[in-house]
């Protein structure tokens, strides 16, 4: 279990403010945020490399705030692997064992299991300089797990890998987490990784935690406009609420919730917007006519930008549908979206 209480860090040109975060025992938790948001600084504060201004850090209910990194019982895997280039694969993996002796003997109970699970047996005597990205990442994982740490910190471990290796390594991570039951805090900016691996997530921006919650909670019920935009809600409008209606610009939109006293924005995921040239084929709720202003083709799908009254909507549609409907800028279309998919923020 990792508990970060009121963590404040001051670095030249960057600071972390009042970070409160709890990763439960055995949980796989992701810290999501854009580049420069402070994700790695949080990890390096937990591991004890960065001096902290204020706050406390607990690992398995033991305070480690003032302990050096070697006394914290935390494993870390970096994006660039950080393997020791002068050592072989085996010596990299067993590097930490001498510091974790029990009754004078190096712990090795997990070693063969980890080496086997990560398919490293054929690589053990090789130099780490000549491994592929995926192999290097597996060695880095094995090295961190070999000393059986209480928690594992992963700093964008999949970002530097080729797409094929990335999928394999993601599966390996998932399997290892299930099999070892280790507590994992992973930093990433990749939603797929968060969806695939994590039970809960936190969104960090400019050194502050914006929202913490389960993956569906954060992705479908964002609590701030930043989170809404970050998780891909491309339609975020300031709105005035009145009962189960919200007024964005001149547009009146039906929403499902009545209790929106403190809310200021509405947000709609672009994939929740249905598009048709024919009004009859669309559900009746929030059915509005608009004009295509721009089409951004991403290959298999397109971003369809629409001007409706004084509001700009973005919908995502399959490229096939775009061709079937013969859509182009300037053409009138109808959109509709379920009031339940309009999120008040």
């Amino acid at each position, binding site marked *: 279990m990792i508990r970060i209480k009121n963590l404040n860090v001051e670095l*030249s040109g960057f600071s972390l403010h009042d970070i409160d975060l709890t990763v439960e025992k055995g949980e796989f938790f992701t810290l999501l945020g854009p580049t420069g948001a402070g994700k790695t600084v949080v990890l*390096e504060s937990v*591991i*004890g*490399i960065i001096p902290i201004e204020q706050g406390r850090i607990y690992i398995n209910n033991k305070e480690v705030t003032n302990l*050096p*990194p*070697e006394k*914290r019982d*935390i*494993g*870390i895997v*970096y994006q*660039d692997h*950080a393997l*020791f*280039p*002068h050592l072989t694969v085996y010596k990299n993996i067993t*590097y*930490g064992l*001498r*510091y*974790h002796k029990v009754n004078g003997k190096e712990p090795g109970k997990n070693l063969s299991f980890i080496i086997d699970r990560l398919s490293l047996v054929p690589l053990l005597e090789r130099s780490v300089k000549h491994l592929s990205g995926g192999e290097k990442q597996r060695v880095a994982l094995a*090295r*961190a797990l070999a*000393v059986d*740490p209480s928690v594992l910190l992963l700093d964008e471990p999949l970002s530097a890998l080729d797409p094929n290796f990335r999928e394999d390594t993601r599966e390996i991570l998932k399997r290892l987490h299930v099999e070892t039951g280790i507590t994992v805090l992973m930093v990433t900016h990749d939603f797929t990784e968060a969806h695939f691996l994590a039970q809960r997530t936190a969104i960090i921006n400019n050194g502050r935690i914006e929202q913490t919650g389960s993956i569906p909670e954060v992705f479908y019920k964002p609590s701030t406009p930043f989170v809404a935009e970050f998780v891909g809600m491309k339609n975020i409008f300031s709105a005035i609420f009145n009962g189960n209606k919200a007024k964005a610009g001149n547009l009146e939109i039906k929403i499902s919730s009545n209790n929106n006293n403190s809310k200021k924005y509405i947000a709609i995921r672009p994939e929740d917007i249905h598009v048709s040239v024919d009004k009859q084929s669309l559900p009746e709720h929030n059915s509005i006519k608009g004009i295509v202003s721009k089409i951004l083709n991403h290959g298999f799908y397109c971003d369809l930008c629409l001007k409706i009254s004084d509001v700009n909507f973005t919908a995502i549609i399959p490229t096939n549908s775009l061709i079937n409907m013969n859509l182009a800028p300037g053409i009138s279309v109808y959109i509709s979206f379920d009031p339940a998919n309009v999120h008040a923020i």
Partner: protein
Amino acid sequence: MTAKKHTDPFIWLAVSSSIIIIAFILFPLIEMVAQPTFADLIATAKDKEVISSIWLSLYTSGMAALISFLFGTPFAYLLARKNFWGKNFIESIIDLPIMIPHPVVGIAILSIAGQNHWLGQAMSSIGIRIMGSVTGIIVVLTFVGLPFYVNTVKAGFEAIPSRLENVSRSLGASITGTFFRVTFPLAWRSMVVGMIMCTARAVSEFGAVVIVAYHPMIAPVMIYERFTAYGLKYSQPVAVWLIIVCLFLFLLLRIFSVQKKN
């Protein structure tokens, strides 16, 4: 029909400048090496005073490099790994011995090592003599060679990602353990290069040494003495032997540098 290659005038300028610079460095040296006869060179190589001065040069320079290694390595590590208030100032202090005129270095050292200074008196009371001694020569050569060692090794430490050290510590190694198991094995080559740089710089020192210790005579002082006392013909063979030694040192430096890049 082959297309006519057009070479940019800047390339011609670069090539001509390179030729001029190489000639500027090599021509006087080649002339000096070529002028003494083979018999003169052999005779000089058998001259006990010459052998002893070259040996003293190498010994004192080697000691300067060793001292630089012992004290300069932790200092270079600190500069490479830690940010602290006044770091830029400290780094410019390290470069001072490179900029100060050499006789001024000698005078500065004598001014604290003499009997009029408390440090000189303290050293004298425990039997350490700077003026006219091998110890004095080593002190001067360390002074002038240290910046070369510290700067080279600092760059070597900086080239090692600090994440390797972070991982090592997360695996249970202390700062000392991490230094000896990760940092040193990856940085030793830059330390060797730094020691060679320091030795090479120390071997060529004259101005500061001649103020602090004319005797015992290191090779550059002997060359100067033979030149003033007997003329060019008698100083050249000693200079040739010193150049050969320096060339050997720089050859070693190049070999280590190339291996490092690879």
